[in-house]
């Protein structure tokens, strides 16, 4: 029982990380049709910005908790700003040129990771976090590391926040309509490009948040962490249905749990089981669990 509880909570926490990355990817693709291969680099930049600012603030802020909070805010701001800048400078000129967009985001991903390696080196770094995060809490006989609960709560909060944003705000309305029919949104007099930048910034912020949490989850940050997690986030987006936030959330939970359960039974097979799950989903529902599919889309 205790093993099952531990696997379930850690699986949900892993799913939470995937969701934070996948939500931005899904919104960006749904609205703009951009497959953003640089999204993993936003995660890396966010985690490095948080780590670097934490190091720099050591002499200024004595409290670990406060320093951690400030450095997380800086990491998120940097992630959002870099993502917005990428949209404005690199993606916008290539609007509707999908092949070029893919090439640019792949190239950018390599370049940003190389830049991080060149500046901070290829070695791993450790985030300075409040000790409570690395402690454990008893649940169903299992000692579950506290950061798992934080990841789940943060992802739940982001999901609720995103849904509320999409449901109740003018920009949310524009994004939901734009995912359906971008041209018609502009034909109503709306400058959809502002929504593009906003969606990129939100995606960058969520990815940076995932970067910080991944740094805690894996007890380290390294330049390639974002790229490794991006592969699973893409799988989550496809299983959930491109453009669907709820779909991404459901798929992220499924992928996280399956990966943990299978890896427990047979270490290393978890990744394979996720790919198998992707293949089965595509065969049964080509548009994903919550997506629409047509042969021409």
């Amino acid at each position, binding site marked *: 029982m205790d093993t099952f509880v531990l696997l379930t909570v850690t699986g949900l926490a892993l799913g939470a990380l995937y969701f934070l990355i996948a939500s931005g990817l899904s919104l960006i693709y749904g609205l703009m049709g951009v497959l953003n291969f640089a999204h993993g680099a936003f995660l890396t930049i966010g985690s490095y910005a948080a780590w670097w600012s934490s190091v720099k603030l050591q002499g200024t802020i004595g409290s670990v908790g406060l320093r951690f909070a400030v450095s997380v805010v800086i990491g998120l701001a940097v992630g959002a700003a870099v993502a917005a800048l990428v949209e404005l400078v690199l993606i916008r000129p290539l609007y509707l040129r999908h092949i070029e967009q893919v090439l640019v985001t792949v190239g950018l991903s390599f370049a940003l990771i190389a830049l991080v390696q060149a500046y901070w080196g290829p070695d791993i770094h450790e985030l300075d976090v409040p000790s409570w995060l690395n402690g454990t809490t008893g649940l169903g006989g299992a000692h579950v590391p506290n950061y798992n609960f934080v990841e789940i709560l943060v992802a739940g909060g982001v999901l609720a926040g995103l849904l509320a944003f999409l449901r109740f705000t003018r920009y949310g*309305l524009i994004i939901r309509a734009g995912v359906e*029919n971008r041209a018609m949104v502009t034909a109503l007099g709306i400058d959809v490009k502002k929504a593009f930048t906003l969606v990129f910034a939100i995606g960058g912020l969520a990815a940076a948040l995932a970067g910080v949490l991944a740094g805690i989850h894996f007890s380290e940050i390294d330049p390639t962490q974002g790229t490794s997690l991006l592969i699973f986030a893409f799988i989550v987006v496809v299983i959930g249905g491109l453009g669907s936030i709820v779909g991404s959330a459901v798929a992220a939970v499924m992928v996280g749990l399956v990966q943990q359960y299978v890896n427990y039974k047979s270490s290393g097979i978890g990744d394979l089981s996720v790919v198998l799950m992707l293949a089965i989903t595509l065969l049964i529902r080509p548009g994903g669990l919550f997506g629409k599919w047509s042969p021409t889309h």
Partner: protein
Amino acid sequence: MILEVEDLHVYLGQSHVLQGVSFSVPEGGVTAVLGRNGVGKTTTMRALMGLVSPRGRATLAGVDLTRLPTHEIVRLGVGYVPEDREVFAGLTVEENLRLAVRNGSARYDLVYDLFPELRERGQQRAGTLSGGQQQMVAIARALLNENRVLLVDEPTKGLAPLLVAEVAEVLAKASETETILLVEQNLSVVERLARDAIVLDQGRVVYTGPAKDLLSDRQRVRTLLGVA
């Protein structure tokens, strides 16, 4: 003239769809754009909206539309009711309308007066509406704001005769205050609404003049529109 189109060309892939279209639209009333299927009527509307890239000139009260992005064309006062309605299926009727509001003074009273059913169905998803109801949403979206020119593309397509009459009635009311450029295949609707007509054939204008003169000449109607 509120709208002037000069030597408009549009290429879609390898096809030269509009081959130097020129016409003028007088202020007020309805000007119909007619022609057989595939002659470039919808492409003309889409070019005026900036939804396809044209070459040539199209001016609204002297302002060249061909260099502007779609949203700025709309903000100049060009409303658009697209062919096939293109309502946002996942949004409610109320959300479809709210999205179209360009400033604080949206004409909800006018729209609900024309289409009382839309008020009752405000919380219904637009994708679950019938074709006629979706057309109401599409027209209502455009009428929420004051337009200098309203482009309406085949509003009666696929509708039952009763609904065709209802849509024609709404457009007749709208034309009392707005200039309408109307693509329409139903000649009885054109006869009822249009003061002027423009006929396209193979991407070129082959007739401009009073709609009444065109429609009363059966031989010309048969030749230009392929209608007996």
